[in-house]
């Protein structure tokens, strides 16, 4: 079984590029160039140098002693929270900004939900001196104020998406519209392994540094490069894709994908796409998708702004369909409790997104000598208010 993308841009039956003709030249230009560019030694050198000196990679693989004691197993946290700007998102934006420069683009657009990808994009645009426009749902702008402030500080223009449900999926629509309107000079930096081919593959490759590091870091810690489990939360799926990447074909390594159940999978307020979704087309990709019977895309709910996306990347749809990854869902409450637990056991305030992955430790039991690598995709500074309100601290 092959879990990676095929030459036509599909993971099994998922993926492809379901895009209007207006987007065809942009996407086609990218498709024809992305692998070639990524393979250039100069590109590799610049990418790796920035990951090291600017992002702060390698991100540590930290053995969480007290957490491990509590759950009687061996838990390693992959510390993407320590990256510059506070999440794994920057791995991708660094890669894409270098790509955009090589394609001669000087105007960058992006969508953002929680604001992490917006900040990561604004950051690399400042770094390269490129114009940056970030689309963000009007509702998200209100609930993610610190990240909006960060983007403005970084010189980006934040444009509210006023259409539809005024959240992430609408911001994505607006960004795509912008790209349609600006087909020549603009590159669209998508923030997860979603969108039309080649985005899912390109983003996964940029994020694959995560699993590459896990391999040698685990070797250092445990004299094996193979963990027993890799656990990651899934919004669009980019941190999971990055953490799984080099283990996809190694089926001894069990993959656990954690989706946001919101108030409960069957509560009507959920973002557990794999359980609640059906095959469909969203943002240019055939994938699992939460929708009405009629094929209208529904607005998901999660306390975590980074996980309430109604779709999931095509790689993950394939991992779900084939059973390669186990999909679990975690409610708001479970995630918040797990987040607070990490604060108080390990002194790390996780992003609420990452807290969903942590909640699996309570739900599933592991052998005492199992090696678990958990992708701590981001830090929780952006979520302080949510935590404080939730726990009435």
């Amino acid at each position, binding site marked *: 079984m092959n879990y990676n993308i095929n030459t036509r841009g599909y993971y099994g039956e998922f993926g492809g590029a379901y895009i209007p003709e207006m987007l065809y*030249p942009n996407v086609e230009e990218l498709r024809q160039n992305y692998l070639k560019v990524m393979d250039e030694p100069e590109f590799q050198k610049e990418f790796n140098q920035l990951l090291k000196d600017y992002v702060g990679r390698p991100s540590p693989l930290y053995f969480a002693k007290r957490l491990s004691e509590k759950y009687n197993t061996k838990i390693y946290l992959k510390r993407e929270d320590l990256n510059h700007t506070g999440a794994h998102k920057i791995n991708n934006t660094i890669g894409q900004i270098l790509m955009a420069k090589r394609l001669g683009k000087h105007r960058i657009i992006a969508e953002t939900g929680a604001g992490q990808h917006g900040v990561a994009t604004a950051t690399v645009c400042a770094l390269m001196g490129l114009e940056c426009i970030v689309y963000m749902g009007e509702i998200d702008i209100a609930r993610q104020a610190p990240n909006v402030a960060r983007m403005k500080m970084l010189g980006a223009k934040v444009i509210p998406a006023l259409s539809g449900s005024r959240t992430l999926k*609408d911001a994505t629509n607006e960004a795509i519209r912008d790209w349609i309107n600006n*087909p020549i000079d603009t590159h669209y930096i998508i923030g997860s392994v979603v969108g039309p081919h080649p985005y899912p593959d390109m983003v996964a490759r940029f994020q694959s540094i995560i699993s590459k590091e896990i391999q040698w870091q685990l070797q250092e810690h445990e004299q094996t490069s193979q963990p027993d489990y890799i656990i990651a939360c899934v919004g669009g799926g980019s941190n999971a894709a990055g953490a799984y990447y080099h283990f996809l074909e190694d089926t001894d390594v069990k993959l656990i994908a954690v989706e946001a159940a919101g108030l409960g999978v069957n509560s009507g307020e959920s973002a557990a796409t794999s359980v609640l979704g059906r095959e469909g087309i969203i943002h240019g990709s055939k994938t699992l998708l939460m929708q009405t019977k*009629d094929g*209208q895309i529904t607005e998901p709910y999660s306390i975590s702004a980074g996980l309430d996306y109604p779709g999931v990347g095509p790689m993950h749809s394939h991992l779900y369909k084939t059973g390669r990854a186990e999909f679990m869902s975690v409610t708001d409450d479970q995630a918040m409790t797990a987040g607070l637990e990490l604060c108080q056991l390990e002194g790390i305030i996780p992003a609420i997104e990452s807290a969903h992955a942590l909640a699996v430790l309570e739900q599933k039991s592991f052998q005492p000598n199992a090696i678990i690598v958990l992708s701590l995709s981001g830090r929780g500074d952006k979520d302080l208010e949510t935590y404080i309100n939730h726990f009435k601290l």
Partner: protein
Amino acid sequence: MPRRFASRNDNYTFIMNRIQEKIKEDKKLLSIYFTAGYPKIDDTVSIIQNLEQSGVDMIEIGLPFSDPLADGPTIQASSTQALKNGMTTELLFEQLKNIRQSVRIPLVLMGYFNPIFQYGVDAFCQTCQDIGIDGLIIPDLPIDVYEEQYKATFENYGLINVFLITPQTSDERIRHIDSISKGFIYMVSSASVTGSQSGFGEAQRRYFKRISDMQLKTPQIVGFGISNNETFTQATQHAKGAIIGSAFIKHISKKGINTISDFIKLILN
């Protein structure tokens, strides 16, 4: 609600030709886009009848979608409202069930792929044929997927699939699109979402000229950015016709559907 109608319409060949017949007429064609279920849920049939009576040559009926990423704010807002009003694929088909009893001009359904995919492409096409729909415009159905997976189905049910081209589309790709097109090519005036510009500039004029010079076998109908007599005239200087969407939606949202003929009169002068 039934997924398709029981009685199968048999005038297969006739329907096949409504677009092609129309195109043979020696005139510039005016095509109007509107969103089904807007402004009121039950306006669909009246709007269509009204348009035909006002002298419109062809109609694109928009099946509303929650995430219409190639549309501008006006059309998207009308879609959002239509969905709020309760429009669904099944309801639209129900409304259109008897449309061929009163309307003769070509009718094209325009919709994003996901609702069609959920309905089932085969069932969808069959119902279209039953009703007397002549063609489909599905902006996010890529050409290769169409050719590999759906061409046979479309043809089986006598539906013309309309492809889009933009100023950025390469000559080579345009030739390919021309070769697989049956009715007309939807020529997007600028690489731009609907409703996002007013009047045509130098760049568009050059683009119109370029396409005209390519001498394609398939006639082109220009869409995007046409809002009045002036832009209609400019657009149809080289092309066979033009499509008005946002401007029409704006008109009916302000003036209601009873003044449609006033709007059309102004376009055709």
